[in-house]
C-alpha cells in the first residue's frame, strides 16, 4: 500500500477484521517512509554550494508479505538506487526503512549483516554479477556456509536442492560462470539469493538483459517461487508488460519521485498521470495491425542532477499548466488505493 505524505498508514485491514472476524491483521513486511538518497556532485570539501544528484527524493510505500510491488520508470528515475538504498548498499541520506519493525537505517553494521539473508537482491546484468573465478557451488554456497543456514553435513545437499529448484542440474556444481548463457546465470543468481531463505527479494531488472523466451522461463520461476515459498518481491523494471504480469501493485517513478501508485488493474484500467499514459502508449505491441495512437513525448529525460522546478515532468508534458512549472504536486489518493501526483486532479 502506498502512503500519503504526512499521513499515517491507513490500516484498511482493521476494517477487514471488523467485518470478517476470522481474518487476521496482515502486518506489512516493509515500510518505507520518505526515503531520500542524494549523491554529492564533485569532490569539493566545502559544505555549502554542494550540488546533489537527487536520485531518490522522498519515496514512501509499504508492502504486504507474499505480494509483488512493481516499480516502473526510465533511466534516471531512481528505481535502481531505491532498491539498493533499501538494502543499505548505499548509505541513506534521510528517511526510514522498517523491515519487520526493525529500522534498517539505524542498526549497527553487525546487526545488518545478520539480517541480510532475509532481504536479498537479484541484479540486472547476469554477466557481471557472478565472480568469474569461483565455481557455481561456491558462489551459491558461500553465504550459506557463513550464516550457518543449514548444519555443515547437510550443506552440499542443500545447495544441490536449491539448484534443482531453480532449474539447474546438479552437474553444474563445479563449473565456472563463463560457460553459461545469460538465462542460466540469472538462475544461478536466483539460486544464490534463494539459498539464504529470504523473506523479501528485490529484483533489479532481472530479465531485461535476456532474450524473450528465456525471460518467460525466469518470470515463471519467480512466480513459482513466490507461490510456494511466500517470498515478497519488489520488481524493478522498465518493461511494462512484464511488470503488469507479475505485480500486484505498481509504482511509477520519474526523476526520483513517485508519480502514480495503484494496483495493477487500476494502473492499466484507469491510467491517470500523463507520464504513465505516455509510457503505456510507447510500448511496441507485437501486432502489425494495431494502429495505436502514440503519445510521443518531446525532448529528453532531464538530468537528475538538475531537475526541473515544480512538477519534474512538466518540461515534457503535453498538458502542462502554469502551476505545474512552479509548484510540485503531492501524492494524493483519488480512489481507494490509487495515488497520483498531478495538478490535473484536485490537490486539496
Amino acid at each position, binding site marked *: 500500500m502506498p502512503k500519503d505524505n504526512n499521513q499515517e498508514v491507513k490500516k484498511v485491514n482493521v476494517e477487514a477484521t471488523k467485518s470478517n472476524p476470522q481474518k487476521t491483521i496482515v502486518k506489512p513486511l516493509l515500510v518505507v517512509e520518505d526515503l531520500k538518497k542524494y549523491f554529492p556532485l564533485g569532490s569539493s570539501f566545502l559544505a555549502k554550494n554542494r550540488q546533489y544528484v537527487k536520485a531518490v527524493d522522498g519515496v514512501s510505500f509499504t508492502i504486504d508479505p507474499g505480494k509483488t510491488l512493481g516499480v516502473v520508470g526510465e533511466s534516471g528515475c531512481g528505481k535502481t538506487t531505491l532498491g539498493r538504498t533499501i538494502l543499505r548498499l548505499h548509505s541513506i541520506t534521510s528517511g526510514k526503512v522498517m523491515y519487520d519493525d526493525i529500522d534498517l537505517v539505524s542498526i549497527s553494521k553487525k546487526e545488518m549483516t545478520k539480517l541480510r539473508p532475509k532481504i536479498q537482491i537479484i541484479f540486472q546484468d547476469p554477466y557481471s554479477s557472478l565472480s568469474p573465478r569461483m565455481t557455481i557451488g561456491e558462489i551459491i554456497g558461500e553465504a550459506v556456509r557463513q550464516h550457518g543456514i543449514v548444519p555443515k553435513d547437510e550443506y552440499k545437499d542443500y545447495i544441490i536442492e536449491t539448484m534443482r529448484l531453480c532449474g539447474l542440474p546438479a552437474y553444474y556444481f563445479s563449473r565456472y560462470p563463463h560457460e553459461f548463457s545469460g538465462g542460466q546465470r540469472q538462475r544461478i543468481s536466483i539460486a544464490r539469493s534463494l539459498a539464504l531463505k529470504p523473506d523479501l527479494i528485490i529484483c533489479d531488472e532481472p530479465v531485461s538483459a535476456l532474450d524473450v523466451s528465456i525471460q518467460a522461463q525466469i*518470470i515463471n520461476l519467480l512466480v513459482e517461487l513466490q507461490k510456494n515459498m511466500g517470498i515478497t518481491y519488489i520488481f524493478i523494471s522498465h518493461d511494462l508488460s512484464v511488470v503488469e504480469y507479475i505485480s500486484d501493485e505498481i509504482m511509477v517513478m520519474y526523476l526520483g519521485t513517485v508519480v502514480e501508485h495503484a494496483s495493477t488493474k487500476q494502473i492499466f484500467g484507469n491510467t491517470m498521470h500523463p507520464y504513465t499514459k505516455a*509510457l503505456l502508449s510507447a510500448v511496441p505491441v507485437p501486432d502489425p495491425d494495431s494502429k495505436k495512437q502514440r503519445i*510521443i513525448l518531446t525532448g529528453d529525460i532531464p538530468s537528475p542532477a538538475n531537475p526541473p522546478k515544480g512538477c519534474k515532468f512538466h518540461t515534457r508534458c503535453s498538458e502542462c499548466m502554469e502551476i505545474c512549472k512552479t509548484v510540485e504536486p503531492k501524492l494524493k489518493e483519488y480512489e481507494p488505493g490509487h495515488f497520483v501526483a498531478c495538478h490535473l486532479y484536485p490537490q486539496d
Partner: protein
Amino acid sequence: MKNIVDKIKIKRKKRKEEAKHFISKEQIKKTAKENSRIIKQLERQNNRKNVPEEEYITTMRDPNNVVEFDNLHSYFFTDAGVVKAVDGVSFDIPKRSIVGVVGESGCGKSVTSLSLMKLLQSPTGQIFDGEIRYNAKDGKAYNISKVPKADMNRIRGKEMSMIFQEPMTSLNPVFKIGDQLDEVLFLHFPEMGKEEAKQKSISMLKTVNIAMPESIYSRYPHELSGGMRQRVMIAMALLCDPNLIIADEPTTALDVTIQAQILDLLRNIKHDIDGSIMLITHDLGVIAEMADFVVVMYAGRIIEKGTVREIFKNPIHPYTVGLQKSIPALSGTKDKLYTIPGTVPNPINLPNYCYFRDRCNKRFDKCDGAYPELTQVSPTHYVACYLADEMKAEIKAKFKEVDKNAKR
C-alpha cells in the same frame, strides 16, 4: 596418512570426470591445425590488392532487390571447434522496404550484417561460402563475398551504413560531433569543401529532429544523452545517401519513450530516403511496428521468413509460435507464461538434424530425419519445418476432395 591418500584419490577421480567435459589437448591441436590451413587460404584471397573488377561484378537475380543473401556461410574458426554462426542463410532485401531480422542472442543475426559489411573479426571469422549480391547505386552488382578488403572501403559508408546498438560507445569521445560527421563526408567526397560539409552536417542533424543543431555540432559526445547520440549515429549513417542502412538493435539500449521517438524517426526517414533498412532486433513489438518483411533466425539458420502479417498472423514454425506466445502481452491473461523449454544449443559442432526438435512441442516422426529444407507456403512465406509439408499435404488433400465433389 590414509586421509591424505584418500583425498588424492578423490581429487583424481574428480579430475577425470571433469576431463570428459573439457576438450583434450590432442583434439585442440588437431582443430587448430585444420583451422589455420583454412584460414590461411581464405585470408590470402581476402588480402589481395588491385583486383580487377570483373572478378566480383555479378548480376542480381531480381533487379528490384538491394541485397541478396544466397546460401551464406560465415564461420568462426576457434580452438574449440568451428562455430557455424551463419549456416546457409538466403533472403532478399527489396528496395525501399524494411526487413526485420529476428532471433535470440547467438542466432547469427549480427554476424549476417557484419558479413554484409565485411566487418567480421578476422582471422577467426571468415565468410566460408555463399554469395552476397549487392545492387550498387551505379547499377553494378557486387558479389561482396569476393570483394577484397581493400576495395570494401568504397562501398562501406557510401552505399551502405550501419547504426550500432550502443550509442554510448559508438562515437569517439575525443572528437566533436561536427568533426565526426564531416569526416564521413570528406572520406567519400574528397572534393567537398569545409563549409559545404558543415552545412550538410547541420542540415542532416536537423533532419533527425535534433533541436539547435548548430550548438550540437560543436559539442562532444559525452554531453549528449543516449537518445541524442543515437540520432547522431543515424545522421552519420544518412550523410552519404546510402542505399541500405543496417540497424543493429538500435533501440535496445534506450528507454521506452526514447525508443518510440527513434522508431518514429526511422519510419519518417524511410519515406524520405530512397533506400532500405535492415532492422536487426530481438523485440517482436518493434518488428511488428516497423518491418515489411520478417526473417526469423535460429542458431545460424533461417527457420521462417515472410511478410510481417504472415509471420504474426499465421506463424507455422513452432519456434515462431512460441516466441510470440511467451511475450506477456499488455492486459493479457495471468496464466503461466508459455515458455519454450530448454535453451539455444551450443553453436560448436551443431548436428545435421533439426536441432530445435528437443525443444519442440509438435515433434513427430519425420523430425528424426535430416534438417528440413525451406518449404514455400505462399509466394512470400517460407518455413523450414516438416509441419509445412504436412500442411501442404493437407491442403492438397482438401483440394482433391473439393475437386472430387465438384466433378460429381
